[in-house]
């Protein structure tokens, strides 16, 4: 680690900086940068527009929860909320895709049936 007073490199278990004599124990540990975590906001919005109504909005709510918990320092809670947001995005996307596939198949079957009846 580094001595906050003079910047010298100091072994981690030092009690005192060999360069300037400042006590090492009293110095604060380096502050980690603010946590960034993927909250799936963009995906949630896309799902809300394209796919299935309640799931997109639910995903946005959990994305909001990620932000809130990150700011409160609850990293585990934020990760849990992020997982839920991701899950709702996938559910909404899956349902939207399924509905469109069903419609395409039904339309194709209808076209085939009508052309078959004319034969």
């Amino acid at each position, binding site marked *: 680690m580094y001595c906050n007073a003079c910047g010298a490199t100091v072994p981690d278990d030092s009690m005192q900086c060999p360069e300037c004599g400042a006590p090492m124990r009293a110095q604060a540990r380096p502050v980690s940068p603010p946590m960034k975590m993927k909250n799936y906001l963009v995906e949630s919005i896309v799902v*809300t*527009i*394209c796919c*299935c*109504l309640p799931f997109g909005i639910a995903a946005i709510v959990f994305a*909001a929860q990620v*932000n809130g918990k990150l700011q409160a320092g609850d990293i585990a809670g934020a990760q849990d909320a992020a997982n839920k947001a991701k899950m709702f995005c996938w559910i909404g996307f899956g349902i939207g895709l399924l509905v469109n596939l069903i419609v395409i198949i039904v339309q194709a079957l209808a076209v085939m049936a009508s052309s078959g009846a004319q034969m």
Partner: protein
Amino acid sequence: MSIHHKPHEPVLWVVTGAGAVAACVFLLVFPPGASAYGPVCGFYRLTGLYCPGCGSSRALYQLLHVNVAAAFRCNPFFVLIAPWLVWQYVNWGLRLVGMESLPALRPRSAWALYALAAALTVFAVLRNLPWWPFNLLAPGGP
């Protein structure tokens, strides 16, 4: 800024962009309403109610023809959020090639996102009301 990208992420970026371009081309070739083809809204099919996304295909079609006012009447939320989505996509690309991304424009606060969820819910309810001025929010407008 350290890069923690999964190896397939550039592919995902290209596929997303290609998908968006394909959607625009599809709309230009098969204008919504003029043909039987096009994505369907499961929610509308099942309930007959407009979800927040209803009209976004038509709105995109209008935007492609640079008809912003008509696009707004199809889906105001889409018109407002589409530039933001493009911005996010561009930033994603910049980060992938290791360049400095533009300001993220993503709120860090929770209340902003709760407000968005609430606004979308209100929008979904209001646009289904048959009275003026709420029916202006429905796709197609008056």
